[in-house]
């Protein structure tokens, strides 16, 4: 006869499995990212850097909460996880391509006009903390968006998965 054993994961990690908690962390991470961008825009580089780091830490928590499905290779995922991973990337692609298309369009427009100098001045200032924070924010979005989407979509674990494990 199979014996139920105690769930091996400690309570805080089990809480991450619940969808509403994952969604709350996702929203919090996005809010901190938005704060970072706003602070960088108002020349408060240090606070902006702090905000983007908090956002990235929350992103890492989401990676754990979703068991890093977004970056898992085919050989270690089952069919459902693979489907979820690819679906999340599809949504993330359309979100990012809008941002990227906008940036490329703006840059192409600026370079072809007399406003080119403004772009070049901005680019030459890459050593500025505010610009680095903006680049870091974009990197955080790129690396974390599929995970955030999975964290949002993945339903609550089944009752028996959450409360008891069976041996045998």
């Amino acid at each position, binding site marked *: 006869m199979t014996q139920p054993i105690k769930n091996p994961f400690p309570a805080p990690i089990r809480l991450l499995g619940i969808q509403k908690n994952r969604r709350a962390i996702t929203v919090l991470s996005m809010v901190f990212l938005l704060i970072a961008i706003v602070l960088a825009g108002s020349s408060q580089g240090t606070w902006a850097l702090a905000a983007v780091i908090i956002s990235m830490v929350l992103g890492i928590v989401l990676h754990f909460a979703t068991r890093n499905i977004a970056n898992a290779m085919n050989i270690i995922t089952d069919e459902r996880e*693979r*489907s979820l*991973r*690819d*679906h999340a*990337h*599809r949504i*993330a*692609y359309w979100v*990012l*391509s*809008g941002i*990227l*298309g906008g940036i*490329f*369009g703006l*840059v*192409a*427009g600026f*370079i*072809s006009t007399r406003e*080119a100098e403004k772009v*070049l001045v901005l*680019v*030459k200032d*890459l050593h500025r903390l505010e610009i680095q924070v903006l*680049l870091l924010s*974009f990197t955080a979005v*790129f690396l974390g968006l*599929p995970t955030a989407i999975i964290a949002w979509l993945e339903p609550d674990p089944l009752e028996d998965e959450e409360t008891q494990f069976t041996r045998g």
Partner: protein
Amino acid sequence: MTMPQEPLNFKLSRVTPKWAFKQSARRFLVIAFFLVPFVAGTAAGYINSLWSLLFAPFAIVPIVCFLWLVGATGAGADSPDEYLDEREIAVRNEVYLNAFRILGAVIAFGFAVFTFFPDLPVGANNVFATLFPLAILLPTFTLAWTQPDPLEEA
């Protein structure tokens, strides 16, 4: 009862020439999409006279290439779930995973160029204008590049 109207991108499959369905032809079309306007635009820029208008018809080439690629892939990258079977949905979604990674590489390359070569020439807008549609078209290109040849009986 009215029949649902066939989407436009499915109609493209019927007007696409048969040779374009082969994988090698699709890859050729992807390369031509980028290469032809780049070479024609650069050459026209160097001539810098009315003779450069001779290169204007080459602007049609990327449009034709893209329409044929959509037709040759059966619009698999852009179709909604209701028009695809389970296998096609899986293939389409995997295409987006690869496209996402390629897009990431392009962004990283762009940042690297800006960081190490901040003094871009004014003509650099041609390159950005070529890259501008990439974000929209990349899934179709990825599917066209990776999809194997159609089966013999198909």
